Structures are given as structure tokens and as C-alpha cells.
């Protein structure tokens, strides 16, 4: 397998703009937010180093290095088959890397945790195809996603407190589904399902949100609304957005990573990566 030449950037260099953003947020107290027990002393929430994933000899991820800072909004772009979804699978524990390190905060080794443990530790994921619990109402969908003790016993005895109910109502407002709270989620439109799934992520109150093509199938107005929503979330949460829609990426991202054949091809602001010769080559062909 031919090694893909890595862009001439060091991890330290790649972190630079993030640290700037982080320190800016620190100044207004946003960068300080962290979950119980999650150590983020170095300002890096997610650390992926030399990640390799191969399926029957096909290298889906190839020596991938990626760092996501606390409160950062990162967009991941790349042509089909670049490994974007595999990357999300590795972070959420669905796929185990063949080799490499994956740390959440400074102390949690993602390669040793199950999907459920990872979700409980504070990584939320939105699937490419909107996945909600269709037989349950919108309200119940959010109720299940809510951050709480999720053991069998706790679920048998669970009762909604007033505070939890308020939190659900608040999220219903945020995602614009207050009027549909009692409708079965299966009856929602495609865009509404997308919003419900985002709402469910918010109920989980994760440190890191992974969003796989969140605006696919949304109308322009919905896309615009989503962009505003994500920008308001950054700072409080770290977001990693995989998206094809360059307009959308341009409207939200302060930092973009381009994946190609399983490794990072370029990183920087959208203008920087769009001006990068190798990125143009990959996207437009030789």
C-alpha cells in the first residue's frame, strides 16, 4: 500500500488555531466547561493518534491523527470513501482500530470501552440516516435520551421530575417541535426527524457531539437554522460535523479537516483548505 504523504504539519501546529479559539473562550469562561471526572487539562477533548483500520486488507483509516479541542466546532470533509463514517465508528466504539490511540479527555481510552460506556462518558452521535424511536412520541424520545441513570433498575422506577420535564420542554422549543410533542416520531417529516435526533443528542448533554451529515435532506431555511444552532452549541460542547454541503460548512466552521483515503490531507480554515492544491486535486481529479 502506497503511503499517502502527510501534509507538512505537526500536531502542535494543527492545534494552534484551536488553542487560540480555546483561550478566547476561556476569557469568557466557556472553555472551562467539563464533565464530571473528565480530565481535559491540555485543552484537547479528543485525541486520535496513528489510527489504522483495515477491512480485509482495505485500509479505511491510515495513520490518522486528529485532535479536537474543548468547545471547538470542527468540520470534516472529504470525498466519498475517505473514511469519514469509519472515523465516527472508531470514536463511538462501533469499530475497533487495528492500531493507534484514541483518548477522550486525558484519561479515557476509547479503544477499551464499549459503545454504551462511550456514550455514557459523554460522546453523542447522530447517524447519517435520521434514527429516532418511531413508535414513541417526540416527548418520549427526548425523555429516553435525557442524561440520567440508564440502568435497568433505574428505568423500572424512573419518574420524571419537574426539572427534567422543564429541560425537555426547553429542548422542544430549541428544535422547534413543541407543537408536535405528543405526536409519534414516525409521523414527523425528514427534516423534523433530523431535528429530533439533534434534540436527543442535546438531552444527553454530551461533551462531544458527532454529527454525520446533519443537514442532508433539509430545506434551506432548516439548514440555516441548524447552522445557527450549531454555532450556539460550540463553546458549550465540542462538535465534529461531517458534511458535504460546502455552503453549510462555510457558514459554521472555524476549522476544517479534509480526509482523503483514510488520513488527514489538510487542515485549517475553509479558505485555506480550499486553496490547497492537493485538496483541489482530490476533489476535482487530476
Amino acid at each position: 500500500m502506497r503511503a499517502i504523504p502527510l501534509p507538512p504539519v505537526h500536531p502542535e501546529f494543527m492545534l494552534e488555531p484551536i488553542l487560540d479559539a480555546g483561550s478566547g473562550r476561556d476569557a469568557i469562561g466557556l472553555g472551562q466547561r467539563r464533565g464530571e471526572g473528565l480530565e481535559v487539562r491540555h485543552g484537547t477533548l479528543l485525541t486520535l493518534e496513528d489510527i489504522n483500520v483495515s477491512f480485509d486488507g482495505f485500509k479505511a483509516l491510515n495513520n490518522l491523527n486528529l485532535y479536537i479541542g474543548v468547545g471547538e466546532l470542527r468540520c470534516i470533509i472529504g470525498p466519498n470513501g475517505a473514511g469519514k463514517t469509519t472515523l465516527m465508528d472508531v470514536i463511538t466504539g462501533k469499530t475497533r482500530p487495528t492500531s493507534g490511540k484514541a483518548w477522550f479527555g486525558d484519561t479515557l481510552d476509547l479503544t477499551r470501552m464499549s459503545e454504551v460506556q462511550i456514550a455514557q462518558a459523554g460522546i453523542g452521535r447522530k447517524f447519517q440516516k435520521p434514527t429516532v424511536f418511531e413508535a414513541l412520541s417526540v416527548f418520549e424520545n427526548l425523555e429516553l435520551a435525557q442524561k440520567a441513570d440508564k440502568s435497568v433498575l433505574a428505568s423500572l422506577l424512573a419518574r420524571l421530575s419537574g426539572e427534567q420535564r422543564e429541560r425537555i420542554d426547553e429542548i422542544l422549543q430549541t428544535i422547534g417541535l413543541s407543537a408536535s410533542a405528543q405526536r409519534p416520531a414516525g409521523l414527523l417529516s425528514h427534516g423534523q426527524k433530523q431535528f429530533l435526533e439533534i434534540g436527543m443528542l442535546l438531552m444527553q448533554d454530551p461533551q462531544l457531539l458527532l454529527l454525520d451529515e446533519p443537514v442532508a435532506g433539509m430545506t434551506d431555511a432548516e439548514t440555516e437554522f441548524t447552522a445557527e444552532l450549531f454555532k450556539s452549541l460550540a463553546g458549550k460542547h465540542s462538535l465534529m460535523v461531517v458534511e458535504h454541503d460546502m455552503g453549510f460548512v462555510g457558514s459554521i466552521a472555524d476549522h476544517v479537516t479534509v480526509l482523503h483515503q483514510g488520513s488527514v490531507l489538510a487542515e485549517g480554515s475553509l479558505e485555506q483548505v480550499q486553496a490547497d492544491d492537493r485538496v483541489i486535486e482530490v476533489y476535482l481529479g487530476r
Partner: protein
Amino acid sequence: MNQPLLVTASQKAGPRWTLAIGTTVLLVLLALPVLSLLPAGHSLQVSAYTLTLVGKILCYAIVALALDLVWGYAGLLSLGHGLFFALGGYAMGMYLMREASGDGLPAFMTFLSWSELPWYWAGTQHFAWALCLVVLAPGLLALVFGYFAFRSRIKGVYFSIMTQALTFAGMLLFFRNETGFGGNNGFTHFRSILGFEITAQSTRAVLFLLTVALLVASLYLGWRLARSKFGRVLTALRDAENRLMFCGYDPRGFKLFVWVLSAVLCGLAGALYVPQVGIINPSEMSPTNSIEAAVWVALGGRGTLIGPLLGAGLVNGMKSWFTVAFPEYWLFCLGALFILVTLYLPRGVVGLLNKRGEQ
């Protein structure tokens, strides 16, 4: 406000009607055993045959409810629930055999010229231990099977096939004389239970009442479960297991809990079935029995609590009429019924009723 949709739907369809019909059925069921105690020849007297038949159907209704908890709510189609039913029945049967044989060995063991009881028969002369076995035998088997099946993430049709294989294996095992459960004759010729004559009308009446009580208790339990967050997690598990895992729920525990609960309910139903019907043999474990249970649930309506009870009542009512009128056509009728329900009544009889209520 935010109950599962099914509960809300049934409330909309007319809570008063549901309540009225439910109360009437319950009153009739409570009256039956009392009427059976009337002297023979009285115009209102209920025959032992009718009482046993209805009691048997009630036991089946509990099985249907138990199956619905795992299939209708958690989406795990078990085609082996007859095994748990039969295990509960056998546990009770062991006690009844000991009671019938007094200090000696059960008749079938003497016939095999065994000189002493196998170790697993120890303590079965005590009613309390037999009751423990009724719960433990199906419960532990379900726990072990479920633990491995859910850990390996076996689901869908593979899970159904495995449960089917399990009950088939159980049947073959119990058919063997060496297994020590009476081979293909099983257990029969019971005499008494706790010293009461088993064929006496009063004993039958009490057993019948216990069955009604177990049914009502199971229904209440199912209702509480369906209304709890646990019930909603099960529904979520059925529809989008991955989503649920990424929400931070471990599906294994939820599946295992409802699976074992369902098996134990079946075991209890089996334990009440055996003294009323007076026989238990390995054919109770035959795959067709378990499939029939799935037909009851499908016909009545999956994911509703009343549906499976209706389904069990309807199918068994038809069966007892059919097997008298046209015995050789019953299985064809059952098959046709299953096809028709699948094609035209995906939500069962209850779904049909709800639809009419909404219109």
C-alpha cells in the same frame, strides 16, 4: 400525558367500554368456579369439562401475555416459550407424582426398575420446593440462554430459530426414559395436591381461581411495565437498538430482564395448567405448540396487553370446537389464520378495533 402511545390509543378508543367489558369478563370468570360447585343437574351448574377447558385457556392466555412482553414490546420473537411452560408444568408434576406415590417411587420409575430417585427429584415431595422449582427451572434456563444470546447480539430470525431449536432439544431430552421424567408418557394419574383430592370440584374451583388471579396479576404487571420508562426503553430497543446504545443504554440488561420475567410467567402458567388438565408430557415442548402461541399473540395484536389474551381465547375456543367438528382440518385452519392475520391484520384484532374506534 406521556404514556406509551398504545395506552393512549386504548384510552381514546373508550376507556369506559374497556373497563366495562373487562369487569364483565372478570365477573364471569369469578362466577364460573362458584357455579361449578352447584349440585349436578342444577340448570346453572358448570360442568368440570367446561371449567377445565376455560382454566386451560386462561393458562394459555398467560403464556400469550408473557410472549407479548418479549415479542410485542422488546421485538424478540420466541418460538420456544412452550419449553418454559412445560418446565413449570414438570416441576409441579414432580410434586404431584410424589404426592400420588406416597413413600414409594413414582410408578414409571418402578416400571423402569429403578431403585431410588435421581438426585434432582430430591425435595420434590415438599410443595414449597416444587414451587421454587417452578420459578427456578424456567428462570435459570432463560437466564443462561438469554445471557449468551444477547451478549452475542443474536436477534431477529436467528434468535427465533435458536429458541425453536432449544425447545426441540428439550422435547427430545424429555422423551428419553433415562432422563427420569416419565419418557413420552410424561406424568399423569395425579391423586391429590396438598392433601386435597385433585379431581374434587372444590379443588378444581380453587385452582381455577388461582389461575384467574395469576392472569390478573400478570396483566397488572405488564401494564405497569408498559407504562414505565422501562417499557419505553423496550419499545425503543425493538425499533432502533443502535440509537438506544448511543443514548447510553445497555440493551443486554433490558432484554435479559424481560426475557427471564416472561419465562417465569410461563413457568407459573404451566404449574397451574398441569393439576387442572391432569397430564404433562414432552409434546408440550413440541415446536408447534410454541408457534401456536405466537399465532395467538399475532392474532390478538402485538404490543397490546389485551390483544394476546383475546387471541389466546379466540384461537383456543375455535380449536376446541374445530377438533370436535372437523378434527383433521384444524392445522390447515390454524395455518390459514396465521396467513390471513399477517396479510390483513398486521396489528391484530385489537388494531382492527382501535381503527374502527378512531373512525
